[in-house]
């Protein structure tokens, strides 16, 4: 099976983000980019399928500004992906637009064999959750989100998986090709081994041109700002619940003026 995993470089969780000079991006200077948790789950799922289905191959693709894309592509190769492709969107002002990302991925997929396309169900930074469904639409194949535990029924040539839906766990079957957005942290993603990390630094990364056509993004953020600093919490001292409630109501009335 030809499995493609789409991954996005996102700032490491401990990063202290600064708003960029233009007010609509964040300042990437000195920021370390890593594989998002959702994408780690997608890569792990791809590798589990590869191990279960003889003759399978995993191709990892990232669309965005290089070199941050290369970091997550190499991390994926270190985990066991076979091929890596970067769609370099450095020049295009569309790196923050999920639909433009989906278009870039779809254009790369036109020349990449794929029976199954896996994504994290959303990115770990903007959490838009749009790329997987948009990719399904652009490729003209079904797409499913919030998926866990994807398996291949070799006899019936069908994918079987679970979905964390609104009403509980749903059991699904789907034909290939299709696009699947994986839930985070259900499959205990593996850690890359040291020799694989060293080898991945020398792995070739194919470069795909961004798609031709309009480069203006379909949407753009108006303004970023940091949340205001939090005012310290105030603790109410009390001996009985009644006293606590009385003091709280008094504060809500007289200081916060929530009630008249």
């Amino acid at each position, binding site marked *: 099976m030809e499995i493609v995993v789409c991954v996005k470089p996102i700032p490491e969780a401990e990063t202290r983000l600064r708003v960029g000079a233009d007010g609509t991006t964040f300042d990437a200077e000195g920021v370390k980019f890593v594989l998002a948790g959702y994408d780690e789950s997608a890569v792990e799922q791809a590798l589990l399928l590869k191990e279960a289905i003889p003759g399978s191959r995993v191709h990892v693709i990232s669309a965005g500004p290089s070199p941050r894309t290369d970091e997550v592509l190499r991390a994926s190769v*270190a985990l066991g992906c076979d091929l890596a492709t970067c769609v370099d969107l450095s020049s295009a002002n569309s790196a923050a637009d999920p639909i433009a990302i989906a278009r870039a991925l779809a254009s790369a997929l036109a020349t990449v064999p794929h029976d199954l396309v896996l994504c994290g169900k959303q990115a770990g930074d903007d959490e838009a959750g749009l790329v997987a469904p948009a990719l399904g639409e652009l490729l003209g194949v079904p797409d499913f989100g919030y998926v866990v535990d994807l398996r291949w029924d070799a006899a019936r040539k069908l994918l079987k998986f679970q979905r964390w839906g609104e009403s509980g766990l749903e059991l699904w079957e789907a034909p290939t090709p299709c696009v699947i957005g994986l839930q985070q942290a259900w499959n205990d993603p593996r850690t890359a081994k040291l020799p694989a990390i060293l080898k991945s630094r020398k792995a070739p990364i194919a470069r795909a041109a961004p798609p031709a056509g309009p480069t203006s993004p379909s949407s753009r953020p108006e303004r970023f700002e940091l949340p205001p600093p939090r005012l310290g919490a105030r603790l109410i001292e009390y001996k009985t619940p009644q006293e606590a409630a009385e003091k709280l109501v008094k504060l809500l009335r007289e200081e916060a003026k929530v009630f008249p």
Partner: protein
Amino acid sequence: MPDFALTSEQESLRDMARKFARTEMAPHAAECDRAGRFPEEIYRKAYDLGLMNLNVPSDYGGSGLSLFDQCLIVEELAYGCGGMTTSIIANCLALEPILLAGTPEQRTRVLSPFCASYQLAAFCLTEPSGGSDAGNLRTRARRDGDHYVLTGEKCFITNAPHASLYTVFATGDPNLRHKGISAFMVPRSAEGLTPGKDEEKMGHRASSTSTVRFDGVRVPASDRLGAEGDGFSIAMRTLDQTRTPIGALATGIAQAALDHAARYSLKRETFGKPISEHQAIQIKLANMAQSVRAARLLTWFSAWTIDSGHKGTLESSIAKCFASDAALHVADEAIQTFGGYGYMKEYPVEKLLRDAKLTQIYEGANEIQRTVIARELLRDYA
């Protein structure tokens, strides 16, 4: 000029070791310390990830890292648990004599199968009657045809109860002092080789340490490393290579102590404000941070010197000695920052002091390091 800006490859290695240390080692550090438990499941994982035979070239199944990259990894591991790190890197020490003095045939015959699965090796130099005075060995290697017969006892041997391979230093004639010493590779299966019981230690309690007895152990001459009488030089050249990572190990302990102290100082309040706002604590933290940075840079400089093809005896002795003294000092100040809580086993910092102490003693006590430093130093003035 040394350039200590890490490459993205080095960052990947460090990040991987950091993740392993913080998710696999640190959560079990307190429990292993309390019980004196040897967490073999963690060592197996370390092996699986390629964190164990760091100095062995990949041709023989190791990770083949430069000394600098080894130091990056060792510091991260020690941040998670100093004792576990001692056991994880003991293979590097025990296998270094084979890398330095083994013939290609010996290396292929011994290292390749050894590195192909999870196995531990033990470096057997120290004896009950002398550690620093390594020229004064009592363990005998008597030649008998195409064999040697080893008789004697080694002590304080890391991983000895769990090892499958021992690199052993023994003398053909104690009167020859260091010129009489030869080095041997001895498998655990050799008849007459008996590891003792686990020692109860002050720190590094997740590591295992014991005596090893040799009662007429027959070793084929083909398992001697280097020429007869080369043993002392092999041991010293081995320690020249492995001293620097001990500086990294001490730096990891020191960094952990600083992090604990700094975080605690922001939370703990006295006299109506966090203790981080008291100058007495600020001065402590500032001094601790200087010690940690200096320890790391001396360690990196030593690794860079050796990776550049120099012997680095002076640099590695300075790195090991300074970093281990720094680790003890920083752990001590971390406890002081925590006050009474720091003295309690429920809090993580008293373990760091106990773990730091060993780094001043093993792989060449700091007194010996200072002797070496002075000797190397005075050469330039003579």
